[in-house]
C-alpha cells in the first residue's frame, strides 16, 4: 500500500517540484560540503593532507590523526581522557539541571497563578535577545565575585540560565487542555504530583528539544573554559580543540588532528539531532512569540 502511494505521489510532481528539488539540492550540497570535507580530512594520512594538487576525497584512510590527537594531548601534560571526562561531566550536569529547572519554571508560568508572573515572563522573553557573549565581561565579574573561578560550577551554572528553554517548554505546556490538570487537582493531587505525573509526560517532546539545545550549546562551548578556568586539567574538549585550530591560519601543522577533534565534537551532536528531529520540529510549532 505505501509503495503504491509513493509512486502516485512521484508521478504527480510538477515542473515547480523539479525546479524546487534542483535549487534545494544545490543548497543542501553547499551546506553539507564542508562536513563531508572534514570527514575526509580526518582520515587522510599526512601525505594526502599536504599533497599538491590537493584532493578532496581521501584515498588511503587511516586512523593516524586520531592517534596523533592523543600524543598532542600528552605534550600539554593533560591527557586526552581528562578533557573528554571534563566535557562529559559538565555537559551531563548542565543538561540535566537545565531541563529540571526550566520545566519547573515553565510549569509555574503556564499552570500557576502567582504574583509577578507576567513581569517575570516578559523579562525572560526580553532576555532571549541578549546572548551570553554580549555580557561576557560583567558575567565574568559576577562569577569571580562569587568565587567560582576555576570551579566546575563556573562551567555549569551559567549554562543553566537558558531563557529559550523556559520559553519553549512554557509555550508547549500552554497547549495542554485545562481539564487535564483540573481533574488531577480535584482528585487531590498536589502541585508536585500534577507537575511530575501529568504535565511532564505530556510535554516530553518539548523537554527533549530543550535537552538538545542545551547539549549543543554546552558541548561546543570553548569560551567558558578560556574565561573562567585556570587549571588546564579542568578545561573542556572544545577548548582543547580551539587551541589546536588557533595555529592553523599560519601553519599547517595539526591540520589532521584538528579535523579529527572537530569530527569527534560534531558526531554526538549530529546523532542526537538525527534521532530527535521530529520531536524538535513538533516543539518548534509552538515556539512562536505571541
Amino acid at each position, binding site marked *: 500500500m505505501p509503495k503504491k502511494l509513493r509512486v502516485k505521489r*512521484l508521478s504527480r510532481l510538477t515542473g515547480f517540484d523539479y525546479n524546487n528539488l534542483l535549487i534545494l539540492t544545490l*543548497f*543542501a550540497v*553547499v*551546506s*553539507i560540503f*564542508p*562536513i563531508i*570535507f*572534514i570527514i575526509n580530512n580526518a582520515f587522510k594520512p599526512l601525505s594526502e593532507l599536504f599533497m599538491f*594538487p*590537493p584532493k578532496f576525497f581521501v584515498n588511503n584512510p587511516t586512523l593516524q590523526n586520531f592517534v596523533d590527537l592523543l600524543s598532542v594531548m600528552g605534550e600539554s601534560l593533560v591527557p586526552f581522557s581528562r578533557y573528554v571526562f571534563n566535557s562529559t561531566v559538565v555537559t551531563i550536569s548542565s543538561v540535566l539541571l537545565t531541563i529540571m529547572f526550566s520545566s*519547573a*519554571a515553565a510549569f*509555574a508560568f503556564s499552570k500557576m*497563578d*502567582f*504574583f*509577578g508572573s507576567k513581569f517575570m515572563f516578559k523579562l525572560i522573553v526580553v*532576555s*532571549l*535577545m*541578549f*546572548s*551570553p*557573549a*554580549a*555580557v*561576557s*565581561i*560583567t*558575567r565574568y*565579574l*559576577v562569577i569571580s565575585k562569587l568565587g567560582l573561578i576555576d570551579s566546575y560550577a563556573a562551567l555549569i551554572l*551559567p549554562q543553566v*540560565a537558558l531563557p529559550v528553554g523556559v520559553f519553549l517548554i512554557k509555550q508547549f505546556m500552554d497547549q495542554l487542555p485545562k481539564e487535564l490538570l483540573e481533574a488531577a487537582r480535584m482528585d487531590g493531587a498536589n*502541585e508536585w504530583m500534577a507537575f511530575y505525573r501529568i504535565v511532564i509526560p505530556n510535554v516530553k517532546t518539548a523537554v527533549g528539544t530543550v535537552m538538545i539545545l542545551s547539549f549543543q550549546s554546552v558541548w*561546543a562551548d*570553548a*569560551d567558558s573554559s578560556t574565561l573562567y578556568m585556570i587549571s588546564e586539567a579542568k578545561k573542556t574538549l*572544545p577548548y582543547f580543540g*580551539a587551541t589546536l*585550530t*588557533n595555529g*592553523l*591560519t*599560519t601553519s599547517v601543522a595539526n591540520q589532521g588532528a*584538528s579535523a579529527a*577533534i*572537530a*569530527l569527534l*565534537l560534531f558526531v554526538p*551532536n*549530529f546523532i542526537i539531532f538525527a534521532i530527535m528531529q521530529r520531536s524538535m*520540529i513538533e516543539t*518548534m*510549532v509552538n*515556539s*512562536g*512569540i505571541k
Partner: protein
Amino acid sequence: MREGTRVSRSTHIWNELKRSRTAYLFLAPFMICFIVFIVVPVFTAALLSFTSFNSIQPPKFVGLLNFKIMLTRDSVLMKYVIPNTFKFAVFVGPIGYAMQFLLAWLISQLPKRLKKVYVMAIYTPSIAGGVLISTVWVVLFSGDRLGYLNNALINLGLISQPIAWTQSASYLLGIMIFVTIWGSMGVGFLSLFAGLQNVDPTLYEAGKIDGIKNKLQELWYITLPSMKPQMLFAAVMSIVGALNAGQIGVQLSGQNPTPNYAGQLIQNHIDDYGFIRYELGYATALTFMLLVAAYSFTRLTWLVLGNEDDN
C-alpha cells in the same frame, strides 16, 4: 485613612506572596540562575558604563565620558567596527533571515519523505561547532597553492596567483558573512519550517475557492499571516545571531585585531577593551550600546510582525 490603605496594601501584597509560595518554589532554581548570570550582568554593564574601571581599583564615576569617547575619539570604532558590524548585521540578519524563510518554504513544498533529508542537510552546519568551522574554512580558504579554493580557481584559470583569503582586508568580511549565514540555519530555521508545516490545510482549500491562483499568492495571503508568531521567534534568533557573532573573524584570520581591522566587529572591540586592555568601563559602555541596539531592532521587528495588543 491614608495609613489604613498603606497597611491594607502591604498586607494585600503579603497575602499575594503567601498565595504564590508554591509557584515560587517551582521558579526559584531557574530564576536564581537567570538573575545571577543574565539580569545582574546586564544591569552591572549598564552601571559600569558610567565609570572608569580597570578591575583593580574600585570603579570611579565619570558620567557620560565613555559615551563621549565612543563618539569622538575612538576612530577604530567609527572607521571600522561600526561599518563592519552594520554590513555584517544587514547581510546575516535580514538577508540570512530571508534565506532561512525561503529554504524552509521550499522544503515544505517537497513530498513528505524528502523533507526530513533536506531539513537535516540545511540544519547540520548550525551544530557544527566552532572547532569544525575554523578547521574547515581555514583549510578551504588557505592562502597558499595548497588551499582548496585557490587550487580550484587556478585550475579554472580564474586567478593566476594564490590569494590569502582570510588575511586579506578586501575578502575577510565577505567570507565571514558567507560562513555565518552557512551556519545560521538553526533554531530559527526549524521554527519557521515547523510554522509552515502547521498551517491549517483547510485554509488553503478555502483560498482556492476564493480565487488564489498560484503559490506566491498562497504564500502571501495565507501562509505568512498564519505563522507570524514563528516568524517573530526566528527573527529574534536572527538578530541575536547577527549582532553577537563576534568570534568568526578572529577564528578565520587567527588574529584579534583582525588584519587591518577588516573583520573587526563590535563584539571583538568589546573583548579587545575588556579582556586585553582591561578598560572595563569603556568596554561595558560598548556592551550597553550593543544591548540597546539588539533591543531596538527586536522591538522594530515586533512592531512589524507582532499583534498590536501585546507589549
